[in-house]
């Protein structure tokens, strides 16, 4: 078996890149919205056969056991090639959770099905009235002897319509002193009676997110992970270098590339007023990428990232937003036309870029929350 970690970074990167070039389907590169499972199933099943579902998991659990530095390269190369994201909550969240806190029985039961994509996991964190205040969640799980009875509602669950299982935070001790206490981590089969999934249509017309309703849903006792009432602590402990990716320059680079293609075809670069604005954004993206690399260097060196990485998310999403705003302006009198606009032989959909940018300043912790965090934990301003 290949020892990937023993390779030089350059070799490893070249390896991944060439694999993608040879195997990844062209029509799935750079999708303009979140893809559905049936669209990418074949590709990910092929990856699973190679044993590459979980690059970050330890080899003893069926992962590749890549070092953080190699994992970063793996993700970067996928981003660079425009690989569509899988419904990867099983790999990213449930697996690491079980490896760290699960019982042997849970590991034996769930991990192989994550690796084979037999189970597709979705996330049940947000609730209609919790928003950025996650700890105020109200979905509750009541102890009914040999099982829990779950009632409540989750929302913003990405592509729940494609999932087979949901992991959720539910209140198991409503009398706990602080609202962060008394929350537990439950694993739930989405086929359990009492569960209803309702997709939420967004303003661009897509259905990326769902509401998930729980009406007296019975969950077996042994599908609670770790200690009861410790769900919050476990959820926080799982946040690793994933937060770096909220500040990735890829979305902005991709958006700027699309605007560039449109502007080139339409001759807009010859208009100094446009060129000036474009240059400003180009530098905003370039300097973001430079700063991102400095953080990535720290990850590569094995360092854990602090709250300061939050500024990347703020700048990345607001830069994306400015690119989207300029794109709509660049479309001129056609700014209201939906679908693609002719740009030479191509068609560039600037409005989908606009709608794509809209939620990025909200999701993953809104930029207001990020600025609050930075002010408190990084600038250390007294409140």
């Amino acid at each position, binding site marked *: 078996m290949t020892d990937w970690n023993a390779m030089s970074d350059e070799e490893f990167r070249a390896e991944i890149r060439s694999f993608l070039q040879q195997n990844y389907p062209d029509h799935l590169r750079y999708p303009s919205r979140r893809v559905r499972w049936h669209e990418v199933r074949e590709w990910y099943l092929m990856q699973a056969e190679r044993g590459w579902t979980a690059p970050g998991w330890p080899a003893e659990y069926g992962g590749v056991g890549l070092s953080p530095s190699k994992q970063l390269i793996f993700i970067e190369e996928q981003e660079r090639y425009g690989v569509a994201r899988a419904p990867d909550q099983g790999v990213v969240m449930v697996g690491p959770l079980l490896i760290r806190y699960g019982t042997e029985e849970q590991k034996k039961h769930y991990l192989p099905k994550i690796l084979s994509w037999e189970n597709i996991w979705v996330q049940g964190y947000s609730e209609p009235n919790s928003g950025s205040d996650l700890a105020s969640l109200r979905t509750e799980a009541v102890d009914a002897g040999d099982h829990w009875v779950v009632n409540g509602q989750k929302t913003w669950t990405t592509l729940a319509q494609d999932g087979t299982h949901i992991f959720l935070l539910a209140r198991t001790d409503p009398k706990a002193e602080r609202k962060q206490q008394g929350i537990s981590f439950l694993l739930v089969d989405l086929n359990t009676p009492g569960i209803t999934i309702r997709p939420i249509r967004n303003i661009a017309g897509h259905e990326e997110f769902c509401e998930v309703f729980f009406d007296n849903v019975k969950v077996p006792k042994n599908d609670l992970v770790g200690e009861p009432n410790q769900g919050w602590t476990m959820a926080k402990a799982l946040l690793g270098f994933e937060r770096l990716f909220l500040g990735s320059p890829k979305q902005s680079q991709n958006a700027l590339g699309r605007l560039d293609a449109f502007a080139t075809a339409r001759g807009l670069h010859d208009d100094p007023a446009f060129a000036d604005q474009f240059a400003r954004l180009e530098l905003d993206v370039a300097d973001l990428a430079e700063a991102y690399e400095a953080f990535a260097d720290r990850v590569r060196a094995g360092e854990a990232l602090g709250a300061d990485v939050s500024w990347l998310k703020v700048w990345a999403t607001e830069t994306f937003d400015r690119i989207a*705003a300029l794109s709509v302006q660049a479309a001129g009198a056609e*700014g209201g036309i939906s679908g693609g606009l002719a740009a030479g032989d191509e068609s560039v959909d600037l409005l989908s870029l606009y709608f794509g940018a809209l939620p990025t300043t909200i999701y993953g912790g809104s930029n207001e929350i990020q600025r609050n965090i930075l002010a408190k934990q990084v600038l250390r301003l007294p409140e």
Partner: protein
Amino acid sequence: MTDRQEERRMLADSVAGFARQYDGIARARGLSDGAGLDPEAWAAMADLGLMGILVPEEAGGLGLGIPEMAVVAEELGRNCAPEPLVAQAAAQAALAQVDSKPAKECLAGTADGSTRLALAWQEKADQLNPAVITSRADAVDGGVRLSGSKCLALPADADLFLVSALDNGVPALFLVPRDAAGLELQSQRQVDGAETASLNLNGVQLPAEACLCTGDAALQALNTGISAGLTLASAELLGLADRLYTLTTDYLATRKQFGVPISSFQVLRHRAVNLYIQRELMRAALNQAVRAFEQGATGEALQRAASRAKARAGDAAQLIARESVQLHGAIGFTEEADVGVHLRRVLALSAWLGNAGWHRRRYRTLSRQAA
């Protein structure tokens, strides 16, 4: 309050009454879903006289002006009504400059809602000067033949298109029925669900009287129509922005997080104030354009005033809509929230007849020429 002010207030009340009966947001969602426009609401609007405001009394209209139509447009915007009344009003305003029987007949049809009319003057998306015409009108036996192409004509399902073309090098205006032989229509969907038309004029055969006017009169009619369209679009955008402002400040005041209304967060309060300021600026810019019409401004003075209104309205409405979605948090990005429906309408209207950047440039060019 002067008589005119009183009259405008009554007009606003009457549109608001209509809006209470017919849900604009629901109709706008219907249009987005491809269900088309609600014929009942269209008929009710005609009954209220909203389509005859710019139509002379002798042609069955109310014989009022742009200031009154702006009141209606603002109120329709406030209710997110998806009907292309403003687009049709631009065509009506152009046609009202023409003193001829076919023009009068057409206007009468628009006033009672039986005829839909659209301006079809633009030939390229990035060419917004109506004096630049490449379409041609050639005299043929007992009539005229049009060739060329037009784009971004709104609404696409108009019964008649008001088309500009050069007749022996001289600009002229023609009324072209949608079923005219040689006319090929293609439609493009706007982000709000409305359709705009591209017209291929493949030797469209028309009777001689289809030519409404020529020369300076034709250009002036076109310019008046476009200035009216810009002003009315600005009014509709103001109405949309005002409703977005209300939706958003209401949301901030009622939605709770961390146990307090989110309007208690200073950053959100100040962002809401910025929306307020932008809305006030839109009103100021609109007022001067309305005044220009009231005072009978023409030519470049009128174009300058209209460009100024649209420049402000386009940018400010987009900013307000964008911020409204943001301030609603995740819910704002869903179809369930009303803000997104408004945003799509704002995107469509702010691009129509040229966006803010283009009109700032025209304003600047006209200002330097005037100086």
